[in-house]
């Protein structure tokens, strides 16, 4: 159910899709750095037509946290 989100993460971080799951974080994904995290957010916001608040973006520690925000905003990401 998270394919579209994983696709974006895979594209932005330039890593294989099979390395991405809800627990992916800067700790286990070295391609995740502070700048391309903003690039990722920008892609997600454009793709799902949503704007996150600043504090929400600061809460994101792993990919699963983005899915929590999707639930909050009523976004389905099949």
């Amino acid at each position, binding site marked *: 159910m998270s394919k579209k989100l994983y696709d974006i993460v895979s*594209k932005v971080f*330039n890593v294989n899709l099979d390395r991405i799951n809800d627990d992916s974080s800067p700790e286990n994904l070295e391609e995740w750095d502070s700048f*391309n995290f903003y690039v*990722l957010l*920008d892609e997600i916001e454009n793709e799902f037509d949503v704007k996150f608040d*600043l504090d929400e*973006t600061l809460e994101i520690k792993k990919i699963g946290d983005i899915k929590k925000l999707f639930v909050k905003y009523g976004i389905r990401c099949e």
Partner: protein
Amino acid sequence: MKNEENLAYFLNEAKTIKTGSLEKKLRVAFLASFTINGFEETMRVKCKKKKIECMTYVGDYNQYNQEILENDSKFYRFKPELTFLILDVRHILGELFFYPYSLSVSEREDFVKNKIREITNLIRMIIKNSGSRVILTELQIPTYSPYGISDQNEKVGVKEIVREINIGIKHEVKDELLISILDFNQFIQRYGEQNIFNYNQFFSGDIKISIEYIPKFVDEMMRYVTAITGTTKKCIVLDLDNTLWGGVVGEDGFENIKLGDDPIGRSFVEFQKRLLALNQRGIILAINSKNNFDDAIKVVKEHPNMILREENFGCIKINWNDKVTNLYEISRELNIGLDSFVFFDDDPINREFIKKQLEQVLVIDLPSDSAKFAHVLTEMNVFESLKITDEDVKRKDMYLGQRKRVEFEHKIGDINEFLKQMNIQVTIKEADNFLVPRISQLTLKTNQFNLTTKRYQQEQISSFSDDKNYVVECIEVSDKFGNNGITGAYIIKKKETEWIIDTFLLSCRIIGRGVEDAMLSQLIERAKRENIKKIKGEFIPTAKNKPAENFYKEFGFKEEENFWVFDTEQTIKKVEHIKMVKNE
């Protein structure tokens, strides 16, 4: 936004670039007062698409001052050719950005003067220490003032502070060849401050140009790269039906094509006006149309609402040949390389055909809606020059003369008779302040008849011409069909007993009329008068300068190691049909 245009694409693509394979190279440095991640990656990818290998240096975060002031900094050791100095208004104004009226009017005026001096000093320091060209991004004019609508009434209000700093710097540097100002406010006007500035990104990472707009901003920077590397386009090739007017003249008839008096017709008039303006600044226009010649040329000549007329086109191909054949012919007749062409055609099949067969040509994917044509043209940014010279403006007339010359040549038939009747006159001119930009432009743009293909910026030409050990001259060619303008140049290094030809070039539209021989003959005769024994020249082959390959040999130069050498005691070629004049 399409995938190929967003920052994620450029960041990933930049990782795949291999170095060392491209002929054109450029060293670019970025110094900024805020986070500019993504800029250099995007520029390298965009350069690669233009077949330029771009090497970059990005200054440490907000360390530009130290890097500029220390003359042994990493920045200077990088040896940049082009430096972008990107300062933002919040940084320059500091607390004044929020509280502009905490200072008195006279303090604000002093502030403006100081900032103009500080920034211009920094730029001059860069040039002094590195010789790099500097592009300064002007400061963004704030759209907010705590005084609200009354800010307009204030003496030296917050917007005026910024405007005055921008104008002051521009005024200070306007005569400096190595400095250009990037019009940041025009960029913001086009895309909107609310898109370009994203508070979340700013608070999180001091990102002052939002991630979505970084590629667009780099496009603005690329305009300078285009101008400096001479990769600018020279000619627009146009289809007629549904490109310059609405409808098909062969089917709809002269009276029924759409041009002028209706909404669709207005869109084509607008497009033509934008094209005419480019033509007036020296971009060549050409027609490449599958049509009945008489039907189509009648519209060009007689339609009351036609903006572009026959004399605006340097070459006209209206026939039933395929478009690739026509484009080759246009390239040959105008003597312009295929990579200098832009191709406009409403028919996707024609476009695909050109793309496949002639990949050097820039093919524009015209939208089906003619209302967007003018906009597509004005967004292209491929016709860039740091300074429009007199030659640029005169060029359209020269190509018109060229068309007439070709017709005359066909009429006369015999080449020697043709040359005799042309009354060619070559005027030699020593480089001066007016000619330096043109000579530099010639070294940057001339590819075919160019013996060494050394590219020189204006300031390099200037320093050669100030040096007593160098001769820097150019030639103006005229004939019975008009003046061709400054179309050739050479740079000679004078030594005690020999002269070395550093640069010798002739614009492609003059080749084949004996001008190159006449140019060299007068040079050798002059050397002989000054008791010089030998003239030495080099031919440095490139992908494009084959037309110059045998020049020295055919003139009588002898090969010695890597040089071609002419002994001034040898007989010197005489070019009878050309009259030489020296302009003292």
